[in-house]
């Protein structure tokens, strides 16, 4: 907990501690999208690694929530960072310049949810074919309803 506080000292981020034994996360924080890169830079400088970049589609609230899970090699601290934006055309800033490994995570999350990562070094599809026009992990995508032409 203190490691995160040290990292985010000076940034306008409210960190909530979580009960690790029941949920496996030590702390979480929600930030504005424009604060994402400074927070990542601060965490990277202290040696936090990005476990994953993913997203959750809250259909009921019309929101797509980007989830960034960090951890640390020396001091086990699982930290969840979330940002949110509207569901219609979600745009998040890319952290590919700070964490090179995030590029692939962003490519995957982008194609699954239809999120555009601004200034990403590489925004091609990763797992889906390049011609895919739908976003499978969105809650309003029903697999059986849309036959896919696999030519």
């Amino acid at each position, binding site marked *: 907990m203190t490691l995160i506080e040290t990292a985010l000292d000076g940034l306008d981020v409210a960190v909530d501690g979580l009960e690790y034994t*029941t949920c496996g996360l030590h702390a979480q924080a929600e930030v504005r999208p424009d604060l994402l890169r400074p927070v990542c830079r601060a965490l990277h400088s202290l040696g936090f690694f990005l476990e994953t970049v993913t997203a959750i*589609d809250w259909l009921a609230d019309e929101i797509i929530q980007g989830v960034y899970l960090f951890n640390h090699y020396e001091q086990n601290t699982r930290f969840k960072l979330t940002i949110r934006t509207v569901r219609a055309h979600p745009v998040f800033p890319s952290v590919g310049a700070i964490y090179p490994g995030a590029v692939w995570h962003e490519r995957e999350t982008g194609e699954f949810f239809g999120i555009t990562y601004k200034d990403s070094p590489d925004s091609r599809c990763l797992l889906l074919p*390049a011609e895919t026009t739908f976003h499978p992990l969105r809650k309003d995508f029903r697999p059986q309803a849309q036959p896919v032409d696999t030519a």
Partner: protein
Amino acid sequence: MFESKTAPTYHLESMEENQFVLNLGPQHPGTHGVLRVVLHMDGEYILTADPVLGYGHRMQEKIAETMTYTQVLPYMARMDYLGALFYNQAWVCLVEKMCGFEVPKRAEYIRVLCAELNRIASHFLWFGAFLLDLGAFTPFLHAFADRERILDLLESVTGSRLTHCYFRFGGVGADVDNVFLAGAQAFVDHMRKHLPTYHSLVTGNVIFQQRTKDVGVILPFETWGYGISGPVLRGSGKQYDVRTSEPYSIYPELDFKVPVEQAGDCLARYLVRLREIEESLNIIEQTIAGMPKGPVRSKVPKIIKPPEGEAAMAVETPRGELMIYLVSDGSTVPYRVKYRVPSFANLSIFSHLARGRLLADALAILGSLDMVIPEVDR
């Protein structure tokens, strides 16, 4: 100009005479699974390496959103068929954590015993495949002969040789008997005598050392930028193993070391994995000796309905840290499941490592990263 979402086109006219594009195609003896790497080469040197994934993509995360928690369990083993029990463990432990299920002590011991056997089997297959990539054919067969013993043991208890679906919520599927325990102990004794053969056949070989020393060096400061974990990370000097950093199951009670090498090259990763086999043998011996009596499964409700919320669970697979992040909305079906697989992060550093190297080195690096492509593709 529209933003192209397709692969980069290589302008062959503007390339110099020695440069060409080579497809380390989806069908290649050297890629472990259906992986395609588009190599832009200058003679035998690689200028850029661009992995193309998705040949084995099955949209596991969407499948999990349409199935109940129990129905998702067999899918776990299909993601990483070499380390199926670890995926089993991650999923059942995650749901147990969210729902607050208790696991009997005997079940925990059996879980660790079978998981460590699985780890050794996975490392044997990696050993054979890695050396096959380097051109040595014989160690593959020696490794597989020993791996068969493990597969026979695991088959007798889980029912399958490869894609085990043995763990259940609240314990394991069936109890182990004394025949199994005796067999596991016999295997440990056999391997302790046999492991020096592996070292004498391979590790000291000059050609092998020349092929793997200082090849594909991952410097310590590069590791957290890519999220590396597992033996790849421990070969670069970082002591991070989920079993000791974030202990789960009965690992806190067991006495084992986490091998770490400093060099960061292919040889270091190789040595880490071989030492991990030795440590796993120690763990197996301890679990056999300390196996308590008791039930192997606690009573859990038939319909699993975790409370609304989220949870994360990490386990140490042979390839690195597997973390599953689950968001539940209180229903019988997960709301969102994210599989953070170790090979995904480990593969993302490949294009950085392969740049400027010879093709033969790139394949050695690919082999030393130990990837299972179905888990990368999910």
